[in-house]
């Protein structure tokens, strides 16, 4: 089993939840499909959904909710 990285396509602020009082899109340990939304990036006051892009098990986020991220930065890892 290998690990694959999910990277941010955009710079901005990463959110794991659709709204401040909602549960996260994905919990650590969840399985994900390629088309699953794993978070939002806020860039210049507009919000963009981030899809996993790859399928895998046991997602492990490497950034916290509300953290600033760079384009290309790893957001999470999954086991494949």
């Amino acid at each position, binding site marked *: 089993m290998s690990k694959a990285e999910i990277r941010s396509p*955009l*710079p*901005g*602020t990463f959110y794991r939840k659709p709204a401040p009082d909602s549960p996260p899109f994905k919990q650590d340990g969840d399985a994900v499909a390629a088309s699953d939304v794993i978070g939002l990036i806020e*860039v*210049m*006051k*507009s919000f963009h959904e981030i899809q996993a892009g790859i399928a895998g098990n046991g997602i492990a986020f490497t950034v916290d909710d*509300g953290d*600033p991220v760079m384009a290309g930065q790893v957001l999470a890892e999954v086991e494949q």
Partner: protein
Amino acid sequence: MTIRSLLIANRGEIAVRINRAAKALGMRTVQVYSQADASSLAVRLADEAIEIGPPAARKSYLNIDAVMAAARAAKVDAVHPGYGFLSENAEFADAVAAAGIAFVGPSAEAIRLLGDKVAARRVAAEAGVPTVPGSDGRVADVGEAREIAARIGFPLMIKAAAGGGGRGIRIVSSMEEFERQFPQASAEAAAAFGDGGLYIEKVIEQARHVEVQILGDGTNFVHCFERECSLQRRRQKVWEEAPSVTLGPHIREKLCASAVALARAVAYRGAGTVEYLYDEASEEFYFIEVNTRIQVEHPVTEMITGIDLVQEMLRIAGGAPLSVRQEDIRVSGHAVECRINAEDPYRDFMPAPGPVHELEVPDGERVRFDTLLYAGYEVSPFYDSLLGKLVVHGSDRADCLQRLRDALAALKIVGIATTVPLHQALAADPEVAASRYHTRFLEHWLQTVFAPVQGGREEAR
């Protein structure tokens, strides 16, 4: 009190603008900045700079405690809040005053009163300013709302009492839709603004957005004529001009007098803007709201009147009376402002932060580019996309548009996508040249005129 030192509680192009105005008046400037803005132009220009927190605005530019700590540490005489962020936050104005520092703007009381859209509507009506047909203030429940909706007719707007700036508005076109949307709008307003209060207004179709610049020193009140800001996308202004060519002299006089009456009614101090919808067909204007701060588009007014609005705000905050009398304020020529944003107009206005490798700015007496950019600057993803405002003055509107086309061609921002091509297309558009537009013109134009151009370009690639 003479202001000798000023804290600038903002960022971006307006912080640059305020720094320059304050220095022209001989003030020492202190710029606050977030960790993302350490290399900003405003920080470079200021005499001193104080870091106030992480990139997220709520932890820095919106953090009253952090901004106040900086103001106290720098021992400033005054604080200029700019626009956005804390500029219309009455709690912040209170905190500044409580620290014995001058707030560059109206009193916290006036901000509170005019910031409550329902209270502002009442003040306007009492001052004799026409308001859009709608509810007399907040509506208590869906039953009362239903009666009002039936009386004024559809389409109508459900608006959040605590909203403003185009936020917290829903348009509904039938009673069925109204009944479904009303409870949702209330819940959403409670979540977004901490106040679920709603009011109702009729939609004025094909309206134009006109607004009047006011100045007051608490005793004397003047207007600096109007601006027209009808070219909007998603309720955000894209292009503004002054004066509005759609107004006849008689309507202009009535409109501007109504804004002065409103300023007088609240003993206004500082610069403010009274916003209206103007129905060209009936020649009626209707009050929308008052913005108790400097506006993004203030330079078009400066261009046609020769008044430096930011310097005037600073003098008023220092206790000086207005430097101009109404009879001294005259309109000369025409001015247009284009908001240059870091957005890709060919990709649905996708935000485009990143490094700017080269910058070439058009020069000339009648051209002004108010910007946060310098060559080598990296545009941050954490704040809004406004890079600068290209403002051009001409002897009349046709001359102004010609100069604008030249200025847009000479403006080079290399490294990131910007809205310059959008403005080039607008400046060349016959409908825009004829001033035949209203507040819903631009979105339709983007789909029918601009989008086919975009498709053509993609094929050519």
